[in-house]
């Protein structure tokens, strides 16, 4: 088994078929990468939304406690 | 008009339950009553019959304007054009197949009855075919003539459309049942059902093409018949399941 092309330039050119081969590979790889990245981004978004909501709840609870100082033992959520 | 149909559904169910106890005659009798009711309603709502036909004829009249009036070219494309338009006309009329019954609650009533939904669905599809598919098939030789279809193609065109639109109605009923709970299902229905129409379209036009080329069109016709038999056995089952899913929504 050996490398089939003499030079890097001929590897890119692929005897004139280069554009077809490279476009297919690049587009296919882009789609594959998008398939991996999309759920990861979605998870990060979910985490961020969750954090925001947590902070809002926390703030709301704190203001409620300030108005009504009752030491209520709440379990950490 | 719809309220009256609701009464008839439940009336038929009750009287049958009282008179005959056996399951099988009850199903068949329920089928017949429902079929008669549906047919009466469909005939009364004349636009349901006329609109798909008008669509069929109008769009086909547009075709020569779009692609040019050369007789040879029209002759070559006639079978395919007529078949595609018949497919679209069936598809467009399918949206309302269960809609009225869903909105006035009679679909729910049907689903609550002890009989399986298979026969009511079959009855509704049969009526749908009688008021859309069959008239389309009857009208098709006229359009074939206008589009310069060879004379050998008239009879195969009619028979293949009559058989094929029945399959289309059955397959489309699954899509109509899946989308009945959605507010505006028109385009979605087309998207989910079109791919399933492909075999019918291929063998439908294949039948006409074979006849035009002077071959025997028996095999293609037999396959259309086989598709129809399979669709009649399976599609109402799938549609019944889809109705139950839609009613839960």
């Amino acid at each position, binding site marked *: 088994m050996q490398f089939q092309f003499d030079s890097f330039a001929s590897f890119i050119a692929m005897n004139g078929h280069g554009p077809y081969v490279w476009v297919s590979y690049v587009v296919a790889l882009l789609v594959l990468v998008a398939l991996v990245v999309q759920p990861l981004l979605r998870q990060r978004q979910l985490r961020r939304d969750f954090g925001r909501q947590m902070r809002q709840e926390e703030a709301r609870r704190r203001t409620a406690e300030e108005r009504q100082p009752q030491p209520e033992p709440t379990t950490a959520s | 008009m719809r309220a009256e149909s609701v009464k008839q559904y439940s009336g038929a169910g009750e009287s049958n339950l009282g008179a005959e106890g056996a399951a099988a005659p009850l199903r068949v009798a329920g089928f017949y009553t429902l079929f008669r009711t549906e047919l009466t309603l469909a005939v009364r709502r004349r636009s349901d019959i006329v609109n798909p036909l008008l669509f069929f004829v109008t769009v086909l009249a547009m075709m020569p304007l779009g692609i040019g009036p050369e007789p040879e070219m029209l002759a070559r494309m006639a079978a395919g054009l007529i078949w595609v338009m018949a497919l679209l006309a069936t598809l467009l009329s399918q949206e309302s197949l269960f809609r009225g019954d869903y909105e006035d609650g009679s679909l729910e009533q049907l689903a609550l009855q002890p009989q399986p939904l298979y026969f009511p669905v079959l009855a509704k599809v049969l009526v749908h075919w009688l008021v859309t598919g069959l008239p389309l098939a009857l009208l098709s030789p006229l359009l074939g003539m206008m589009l310069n279809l060879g004379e050998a193609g008239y009879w195969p065109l009619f028979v293949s459309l009559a058989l094929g639109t029945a399959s289309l109605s059955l397959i489309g009923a699954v899509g109509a049942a899946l989308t009945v709970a959605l507010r505006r299902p028109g385009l979605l229905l087309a998207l989910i059902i079109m*791919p399933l129409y492909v075999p019918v379209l291929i063998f439908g036009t294949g039948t006409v093409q074979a006849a035009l080329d002077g071959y025997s069109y028996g095999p293609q016709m037999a396959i259309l018949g086989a598709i129809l038999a399979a669709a009649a056995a399976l599609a109402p089952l799938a549609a019944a399941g889809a109705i139950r899913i839609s009613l839960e929504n």
Partner: protein
Amino acid sequence: MSWQWFHRLGSPRWFYQKTSAWLPWLGAASVLLLSVGIVWGLGFAPQDAKQGNSYRIIYIHVPAAFLALAGYYIMAFCGAIGLIWKMKLSFVVMRAAAPIGAALTFISLFTGAIWGKPTWGTYWVWDARITSMLILFFLYLGVMALSGAFSREQSGDKASALLALVGTVNIPIIYKSVDWWFTLHQPATLKLTEASTIDPSMFYPLITMIAGFYLFYAWVLTLHTRSLILQREWRTQWVRELFAPAARA
């Protein structure tokens, strides 16, 4: 032997926790195999005698087409399990599989079209397999559109599972009919000669790529399923516990 594992398998929480350990391995293995396959296929596999270097597209095209078709069956199978055993997780997997399958179908269509230009002289040919692939693409889009159309999640799950099942029954019929249609219409100038034997030096990289795509599919399907699980179970205790440390920081 109890059925406990089966019920545990249906729990999204169990799935999420179990797969956390597998994910890096799956990802690493698939990236490794794909990299080896791509380098091998692009640089080290010999040129094709007839097609020159353009044939190297096969190393993307064929594995993607494989997985596109297998993915539809995986999706429909998960939908069937969900419908039969009312398993929450399998509906989630089904939903996750739809966009992945559509993306792979797109890859195989796109690379096929690009490959067609140097080989047949045009980007698009209504060849039997390309046409079937296109219809498969539409089937995927239909399932995706239907599952997103319902406001109630469970209805969307069940409806799209039923549609996927109906599609599964139809795929072999569609393939056969498109095949028949193509032999009928095949123009004489366009001979798609089939390389029935493929040299081992070209075949091994192909096998590597196919294995790589299978692993990649498993990896991505798990990733998508996990993010869908989090999205659905957002309000449950275990997701709160999972997210809490990050939220406090």
